[in-house]
């Protein structure tokens, strides 16, 4: 019941805010509508009423609940306290993620400010997704631009970088995009978390563990290249998530994606350096801005023994274009045509120039066997369900690992495919579902697992364990993802850049990194992570924590404080 009431509050709030925003400049001159008696009292003070703006309304800051995301919750608590120092009436409202998401994504005018996080994914190693999706005006209505950021120059720049195939030119554009964001402050950035991973160096040779930029040592390359020290050759890692599905046409849970990557090959792979490199393709050749010639490796075989053919490749890119794999559809939407050139070569024709084609399409689409999926898709076309609901009994791909067993909520077992061109050194790859991180750590210590691929817990605990046990190696990697406070640019007072800048100044990034992240994070200043060294703008305004600076920015923009210390809008607003 209370929940209903709660959800009405923001509506009312938005209504009031909306009205006051719509109200013409004459608003202050007219009787102070809805003004509290205190405001009237203040007007009787020494200063003439006309010179004082209206009271800045109450602000509600959303966050996840403490139990589910203590980092977010605690950071929010700190920021809220600091915002109060600015003379604001601020309330911290924690709610389960589902409710928070419901409000932020689906009720875009009904919230003001929220703590949020963007997670790192392999495809995000190219800045394109964040640069375009997060702030382009076209995604403001329904897409990722939930803060409703509107900037014409940004729209131009972000799309231009997408169309450019020249790396240096693209870098300049991406830097400009970062500058715009840093100045306009739609987000108040907090930190790029560092992901701690650990493995047993008495099982895996340290020099065969690959640290990928922005992703960490838990990556495809490690899985394929890790070399056992002794007889134990099973690569055993943990996940706290359950495995949802093993399906090449369904982007499901985070844990699932690691499995799909290993079972199914792709034409290209994002390398440890973050750049795409040919994989199942022997070569990828840009004939011009819209035509790409891809040559398939020789001698590849599906796990059922049949050869991988050019027809399979074409099928793999055509299948997602139907409605049967909605999640993969965006990755092939700009492909106008695929043409078989010879038994090993295909030509992709794009509908428009697309710089991210390699990363977002060639390195994204799983190669699937036509002889298996064609009848399945034909059957599904007649049904309500699509390919996402289809679980093969034994998934067949051509990748470096073959499927052995899937015990939902227990484990997934894959075995090495010795016939693969990049045959793994490990003999099996076993993903254990261990809901409690502490159990996972215990199992790493006694060798039940030998690769800690997820650590939701306190990184200092892991550090302590690694320090005490010489055969446990800890590797922390700065993420592509980041944490931030999103400010709804559509609603007051966050519709004012100066106000947003002031908020950015009261986010104590250093303290949060030190106390809440326990040092396992880097203060953030951009939506392009420092992990992406090449793309990250090295010289952005930092908004280091300073209440004075925040007040100064507000004062310069014409904000005032009444004698009770409450923040008021600039006169005339």
């Amino acid at each position, binding site marked *: 019941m*209370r929940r209903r009431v709660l959800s009405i509050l923001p509506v009312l709030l938005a209504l009031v805010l909306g009205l006051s925003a719509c109200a013409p400049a004459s608003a202050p001159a007219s009787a102070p509508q809805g003004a509290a008696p205190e405001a009237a009292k203040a007007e009787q003070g020494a200063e003439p009423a006309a010179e004082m703006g209206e009271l800045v309304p109450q602000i509600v800051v959303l966050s996840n*609940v403490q139990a589910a995301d203590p980092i977010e919750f605690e950071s929010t608590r700190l920021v809220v306290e600091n915002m109060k120092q600015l003379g604001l009436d601020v309330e911290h409202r*924690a709610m389960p993620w589902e409710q928070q998401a419901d409000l932020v994504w689906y009720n875009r005018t009904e919230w003001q400010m929220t703590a949020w996080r963007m997670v790192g994914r392999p495809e995000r190693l190219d800045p394109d997704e964040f640069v375009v999706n997060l702030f382009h005006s076209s995604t403001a209505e329904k897409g990722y631009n939930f803060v409703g950021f509107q900037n014409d120059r940004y729209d131009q720049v972000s799309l231009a970088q997408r169309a450019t195939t020249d790396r240096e030119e693209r870098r300049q554009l991406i830097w400009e995009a970062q500058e715009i964001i840093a100045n306009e402050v739609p987000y108040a950035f907090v930190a790029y978390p560092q992901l701690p991973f650990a493995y047993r160096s008495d099982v895996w040779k340290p020099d065969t563990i690959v640290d990928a930029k922005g992703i960490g040592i838990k990556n495809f390359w490690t899985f394929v290249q890790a070399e056992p020290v002794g007889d134990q050759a099973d690569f055993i890692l943990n996940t706290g998530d359950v495995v949802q599905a093993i399906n090449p046409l369904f982007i499901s849970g985070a844990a699932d994606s690691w499995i799909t990557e290993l079972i199914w090959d792709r034409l290209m792979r994002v390398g440890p350096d973050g750049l795409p490199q040919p994989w199942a393709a022997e070569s990828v050749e840009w004939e011009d801005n819209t035509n790409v010639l891809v040559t398939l490796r020789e001698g590849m075989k599906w796990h059922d023994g049949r050869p991988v053919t050019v027809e399979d490749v074409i099928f793999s890119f055509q299948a997602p274009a139907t409605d049967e794999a909605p999640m993969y559809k965006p990755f092939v939407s700009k492909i106008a045509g695929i043409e078989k050139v010879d038994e090993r070569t295909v030509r992709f024709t794009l509908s428009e120039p697309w710089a991210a084609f390699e990363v977002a399409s060639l390195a994204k689409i799983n190669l699937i066997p036509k002889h298996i999926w064609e009848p399945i898709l034909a059957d599904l076309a007649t049904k309500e369900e699509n390919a996402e609901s289809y679980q093969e009994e034994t998934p067949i791909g051509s990748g470096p690992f073959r499927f052995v067993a899937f015990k939902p909520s227990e484990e997934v077992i894959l075995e090495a495919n010795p016939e693969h061109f990049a045959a793994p050194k490990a003999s099996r790859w076993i993903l254990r579902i261990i809901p409690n991180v502490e159990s996972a750590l215990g199992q790493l210590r006694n060798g039940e697992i030998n690769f800690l691929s997820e650590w939701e817990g306190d990184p200092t*605990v892991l550090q302590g364990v690694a320090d005490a046990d010489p055969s446990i190696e800890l590797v922390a990697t700065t993420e592509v993802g980041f944490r931030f406070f999103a400010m709804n640019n559509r609603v007051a007072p966050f519709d004012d850049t100066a106000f947003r800048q002031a908020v950015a100044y009261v986010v104590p990034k250093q303290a949060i990194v030190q106390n809440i992240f326990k040092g396992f994070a880097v203060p953030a200043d951009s939506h392009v992570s420092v992990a992406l060294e090449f793309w990250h703008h090295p010289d952005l305004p930092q908004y280091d924590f300073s209440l004075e600076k925040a007040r100064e920015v507000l004062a310069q923009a014409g904000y005032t404080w009444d004698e009770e210390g409450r923040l008021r809008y600039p006169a005339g607003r």
Partner: protein
Amino acid sequence: MSVQSASLTPAAQEPRPVSGLAQFVQMNLEVFRRDRMALVGACIYLFFVLVALLAPWIAPYSPLEVIQENGIWLANEPPSPRFYLGTTNLGRDIFSQLVYGSRTALLVGFSAAVAVALIGTVVGLVAGYYGGWVDTLLMRLADIAFGVPFLPLVIVLVALLEPSIWNIVLAMALLLWRDTGRVIRSQVLTVKERAFVAAARISGAGDLRILFLHIAPSILPLSFLYGSLAIGWAILTEASVSFLGFGDPDVVSWGFMLQDAFVSQAMSRGAYYWIVPPGLCIMLSVMAGFFIGRGYEEILFPRLRRS
């Protein structure tokens, strides 16, 4: 956690009858006078009630306050004169949380006990006294309640409504009246055949008067028995629900503390000072309920009595 185990009494035994208010009061006093365990139980509750009432004076800090010194959080501090039980991984005083946790435990425990005992007693009285279709209906309802898994229901309710201790109490009230209701009904069935009830009826007393003045006093000890057991169930349930992460995030309870410790690797840190005290408090308070329950049981079912 099975709920049916609330009663340790063989169903076949017929409880000792009690009639009249004076005898009723005397019996309640007798419970604590005669049974040392019941007295211990009462003392434990008394202790926790005092702690809960005096929490702001006993606890050195506010339970969720992050304690800092020069901008550094005092996290993972071991027990010391400043922090009797150390601090959490986010720099909160564990002792203060423990003290405030007693408030939640008692609030949940007593309100659930009252709800369960009240509903169960009224259902049992009405079903047993009126019989007929009322009885059939209520007892079918009890059968249904017996078919609903308790903890899963609490989890679902709390997740669907909102994570609040009142929803835990609600879930308990929805289900746990079943044991109380059944036992009290059968007791009413025997009591209502007794001479004094017939006498009251002949002297022209109305149904309500008979029910509440003549029958109710003799079954109230049974309500108390089930009520005191319900206190324990409620505290345990709240702790379990909190532990599974469905608890009210704004309410510090012992279950919340254990959940916090569990997800903050207190075990790996060897932070026994964080893990052990909340569990002990839960255990003590639940045990106190059992002790008092046993006291009533031994008075009600004298054959079990020990010297």
